[in-house]
């Protein structure tokens, strides 16, 4: 563990009024800045001197319209400043993507959720980030913009390693896009942590799927905290896809999911325990979505 300084390092603070100003600043300052949304990850990282001390902290909250959550027939759009609380409380999220509301409420505390954002959780890119597995099972993507161009990256491909993303120094995430799901689709996020609140996941399992007349029409499984990045478990999905669902098949898929992971051994949990719990939680999630 590094030293924890109670005081922040010195930096200059700017609050641009438009996205264009931010994107221009990113080009100009080339990595000597940090973007500030909720700050619930950034401020502790700066106090711990975990990240390079920035010359500039660019606060995004001066730009209006970045905190919106909108839903239409094509899906859900989450602005980069939408707080975790606002996502959990959004009627559209609760009705069409309850798994996201569930994941949101599993995070931290009311105080942190009132400030922190999903975009920040994603860009911070820790393997245990609670918003990510659920978003991956919903086939979410991120819209990324630089001063010159815009690109869309499927969330599954956004993570390169622990705290490393596909984002370049002159880019920022401007939207999280979640496509429309099937009418009968259901999802669940199960988080295992020693404490019920204010704790990181030892294992996080998200499952989104559809089961019609006992046949698995569609299934996506994503796992958090069990590999250098959140991962999808495609071979476990293949066990179930298009098949008549039985408990034996669910068990086989859950065992398969364990083979998709490479968990660390640390003070939170041993590698062996994490592997056992991937099996248990995946089976439990699949049972809830496909068999109940």
């Amino acid at each position, binding site marked *: 563990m590094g030293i*924890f300084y*109670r*005081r*922040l*390092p*010195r*930096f*200059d*603070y700017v*609050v641009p009024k438009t996205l264009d100003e931010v994107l221009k600043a990113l080009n100009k300052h080339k990595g000597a800045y940090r973007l*500030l949304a909720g*700050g*619930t990850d950034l*401020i*502790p990282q700066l*106090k*711990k001197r975990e990240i390079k001390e920035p010359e500039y*902290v660019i*606060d995004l*909250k001066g730009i209006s319209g970045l905190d919106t959550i909108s839903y239409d027939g094509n899906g859900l759009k989450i602005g980069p400043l939408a707080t975790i*609380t606002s996502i959990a409380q959004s009627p559209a999220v609760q009705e069409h993507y309850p798994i996201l509301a569930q994941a949101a409420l599993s995070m*931290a*505390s*009311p*105080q*942190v959720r*009132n*400030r922190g954002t999903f975009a920040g959780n994603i860009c911070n890119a820790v393997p245990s980030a609670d918003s990510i597995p659920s978003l991956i099972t919903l086939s979410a993507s991120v819209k990324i913009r630089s001063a010159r161009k815009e690109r869309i990256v499927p969330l599954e491909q956004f993570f390169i390693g622990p705290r490393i993303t596909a984002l370049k120094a002159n880019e920022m995430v401007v939207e999280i896009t979640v496509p429309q799901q099937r009418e009968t689709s259901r999802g669940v996020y199960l988080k295992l942590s020693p404490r*019920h*609140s*204010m704790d990181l996941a030892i294992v996080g399992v998200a499952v989104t799927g559809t089961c019609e007349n006992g046949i698995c029409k569609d299934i996506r499984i994503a796992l958090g905290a069990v590999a250098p990045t959140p991962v999808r478990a495609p071979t476990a999905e293949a066990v179930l896809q298009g098949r008549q669902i039985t408990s034996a098949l669910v068990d086989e898929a859950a065992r398969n999911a364990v083979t998709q992971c490479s968990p660390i051994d640390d003070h939170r949990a041993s590698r062996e325990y994490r592997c056992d719990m991937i099996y248990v939680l995946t089976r439990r999630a699949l049972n809830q979505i496909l068999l109940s």
Partner: protein
Amino acid sequence: MKEIMLNVNGNEHTLQVKPWATLLDVIREDIGLTGAKEGCGEGECGACTVIMDGVAVNACLILAVEANGKHITTIEGLADGEKLHPIQQAFVDIGGLQCGFCTPGMILSAKILLDKNQDPTDEEIRKGLEGNFCRCTGYTKIIQSIKAAAQMLKEGR
């Protein structure tokens, strides 16, 4: 230095602050209200909880400059002169505190909870206080205090 305006407990303050000063630093050291405490300094313990524009936040995780123009309520803003707020009174009556370090944050989180839910269950209280740590009481007396406060508020005391 940056100039900011804060409305704290109904009083307007115009302040010159360093960009790297937290809201907690400014409330405690510039404004002189020491009710909000610095515990962990990283958003785990909730001792620094204040209410900003109607929601509970960790003042240790917010830059003072980010709070420019906001309305803030600290524990000092709850009592009506000498008369304690019902939640404060309930904590005193029931003994919902021992060392008292977590109490300002606990009471503000409880206020947010009771503003939304007049009759919370034990489980709802625990969930509402999930961002506030107490290392003394074991929480039982805190939960009893909040239940008593809910009763007092309903009776309009």
